[in-house]
């Protein structure tokens, strides 16, 4: 979604929230997600295009702060791990994700690895207050 679309959506959400209501935003953040086999890092995904989408979302969120709709109150990052039964399932899943790809060398490393097959992704959680 373009920043203008994000601002439109957040304006509607703002209207639906009570005074002093809370907005929670959870979305992926940099650095790029990593692939692990047997607990050993195989490499990183290429999320260059996806992070442009994230940046557009963040730009829209920032615009709503500038417009005085919300105020940032809390912010924290943490890791989310997705575990796959097989390395092929991991590689196939990434192939279906928008704006994300797995470099060939990383796919080869994880296929040569042993379970568990994980993708570790950094996530940003933000709490905003309605103004």
């Amino acid at each position, binding site marked *: 979604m373009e920043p203008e679309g994000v601002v439109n959506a957040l304006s509607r*959400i703002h209207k639906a929230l009570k005074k002093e*209501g809370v907005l929670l935003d959870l*979305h992926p953040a940099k650095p790029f997600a990593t692939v692990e086999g047997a607990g050993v890092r195989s490499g990183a995904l290429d999320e260059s295009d996806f992070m442009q989408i994230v940046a557009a979302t963040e730009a829209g969120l920032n615009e709503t702060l500038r417009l005085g709709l919300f105020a940032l109150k809390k912010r924290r990052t943490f*890791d*989310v*791990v*997705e575990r796959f039964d097989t390395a092929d399932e991991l590689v196939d899943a990434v192939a279906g994700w928008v704006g994300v790809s797995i470099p060939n060398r990383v796919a080869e490393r994880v296929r040569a690895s042993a379970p568990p097959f994980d993708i570790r992704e950094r996530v940003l959680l933000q709490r905003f207050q309605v103004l």
Partner: protein
Amino acid sequence: MGSIKDIHGAELQALTSVIDFTGLRVLEVGAGEGRMTTRYADLTKSVVAIEPDAESLATAQSLVPPELEERISFRLVDAAELDEPAESFDAAFLSWSL
């Protein structure tokens, strides 16, 4: 065969560290297949989960356990066309959605 997202439950742990859902009426925006919805709905008063993709919404509805059916309602709508009554929610949750 398949995958398990957030195998360590980090998302719910993080969410509940920044908000107490008790008694809150929550709007979840972009609920997808309801992966997050059923994890926190039992902590709330109610959840209205909106999702623009009909197939994902149908999956989400089918995965709601009986004990949460009265607490969660789903609507097929995009956030850009949201038209809920003014000041009707205590919290809104954007779950990997905008």
